């Protein structure tokens, strides 16, 4: 690990322009809330939320091809934990508790489902969101005698923005190291051919379970950090299955297999869905489905894939 870090430092020393660029971008990102109005800031919060979820999704589902639709389940779990525990715990403690809960739930879910292959896993994760939503609804109605929860944490849009920014930066660092490490190689091998991966010495179940749980922590934390945007949440808001699909489409649109893929997909997708959901609210899910099919059939490598192919062709023109 130390040797790898040294290699990364060595590499970054060779690319000062990239380093300065990233630094400037980071400074701009940190200063952003001082220069924009609340509507814009709220859009950026939304964007950061989807960037974190789509990137986390890509790190597991994009590499292993285990297509998960459980994103909304973990997001909702985070939001509800904040609603339930927010008034009792200090914020840093709350975040740790939420992160751990996400990890444990993902371990249990993973242990019971990651032996399923392909479409069965996808269907289960789809059902999982609904299951959790029903359990929370039942608990609220029968035990607490209400249909929703108030969130007693006061956070300004700027607070949420900075927290999400930190989460995004941590995720990018984790993702960068993960994809370069032996685990990253294992993830890709599992995605290519799980049987071969097994017979090549990869503890397939261990890798899948570990990375599924790790990425679920980021999804759960996103729900926790974003929750104070609503002062009141109910299960349909927190466990919105459409969000799972949106995350998946964003990642595919940007391009899976690359760390920067999802972020490229999030921005256009958000702008388009913002427009479509206000203009054609009744047809939104149909249009979402069509967009999904169009991406899978026409640009399976996503926007980054298209750009890469274009560059490769320009650099090496065919005779």
């Amino acid at each position, binding site marked *: 690990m130390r*040797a*790898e870090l040294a*290699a990364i430092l060595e590499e970054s020393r060779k690319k000062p322009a990239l380093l300065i660029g990233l630094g400037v971008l980071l400074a701009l990102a940190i200063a952003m809330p001082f220069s924009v109005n609340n509507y814009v800031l709220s859009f950026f919060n939304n964007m950061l939320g989807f960037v974190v979820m789509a990137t986390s999704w890509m790190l597991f589902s994009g590499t292993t091809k285990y297509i998960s639709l459980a994103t909304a389940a973990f997001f909702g779990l985070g939001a509800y934990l904040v609603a339930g525990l927010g008034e009792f715990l200090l914020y840093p403690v709350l975040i740790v508790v939420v992160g751990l809960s996400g990890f444990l739930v993902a371990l249990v879910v993973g242990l019971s489902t990651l032996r399923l292959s392909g479409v069965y896993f996808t269907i289960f994760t789809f059902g999982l969101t609904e299951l959790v939503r029903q359990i929370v609804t039942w608990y609220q109605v029968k035990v607490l005698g209400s249909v929703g929860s108030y969130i007693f944490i006061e956070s300004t849009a700027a607070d949420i923005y900075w927290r999400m920014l930190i989460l995004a930066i941590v995720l990018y660092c984790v993702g960068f190291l993960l994809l370069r*490490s*032996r685990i990253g*190689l*294992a993830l*890709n*091998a599992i*995605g*290519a*051919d799980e*049987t*071969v*991966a*097994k*017979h*090549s*010495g*990869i*503890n*397939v179940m261990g890798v899948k379970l570990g990375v599924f749980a790790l990425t679920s922590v980021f999804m759960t934390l996103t729900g926790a950090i974003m929750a104070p945007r609503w002062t009141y949440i109910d299960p349909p808001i927190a466990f919105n299955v459409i969000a799972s699909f949106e995350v998946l489409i964003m990642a595919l649109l940007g391009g899976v*297999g690359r760390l920067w893929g999802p972020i490229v997909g999030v921005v256009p997708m958000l702008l388009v869905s913002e427009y479509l959901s206000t203009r054609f609210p009744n047809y939104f899910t149909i249009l979402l489905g069509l967009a999904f099919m169009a991406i899978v059939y026409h640009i399976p490598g996503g926007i980054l894939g298209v750009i890469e192919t274009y560059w490769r062709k320009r650099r090496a023109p065919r005779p």
Partner: protein
Amino acid sequence: MSTPILNVTDLSKTFGGLKAVDALTFAVEQGETLGLIGPNGSGKTTVLNILTAAFPSDAGRVTFDGNEIAGMPAYRVCRAGIARTFQLVRPLKGMSVADNVLVGRIYGAAAEPIAPARKKVRELLDLVGLGGRAEMPVDALTYIDQKRVELARALAADPKLLLLDEWLAGLNPTELEAGITLVRSLKGRGLAIILVEHVMHAVRSLCDRCIVLTAGRCIAEGSPEAVLTNAEVKRAYLGDDGA
């Protein structure tokens, strides 16, 4: 005589009503190349699949390098030192040639960290004749070259026992000679090999010893020449008229 690296005792496996492997007993010595031959459906690949824990056997014992390996998950068997290729070539598509081999290197018995493993991968690619194509996507290679990648991936693990499942099948005569030379060069390294093969020319020139399977049972054992002239073996392959 040295102790065998692999000991298989009374191994059995039934699929539905079909006895794929029936009380099979054999051993492989260190550095020995054992040919596993027999007509289609005689259980050869099933034996390899049990040895690598692709599925469990119904009965029998398998000891490798002194340890019982029945019940181990496949990845542990690989790390213990058994590497394999597949009957139908299975490259890790979407990954580069070098990364395909790298997987075998860092996760196999060698268990090397990434940086030194990359160097070793270069050597192995040179060995199998793919030196210049390390960074190509494996999908872009021809069938024979993908077979080379698979062999390099298996060798990268530093196995003590290599299982080649019809690795020479489907090659043209020139490629076949190159393939035989390549496998023969591995024998010099003290590696034990189980060769499942239909190409009799390859069996004759590579195997130290052969066992012949029919319907999951061993019907003959001995040197390739002795086994291939055995009347019962001829009958198993060609039917009564051919013998």
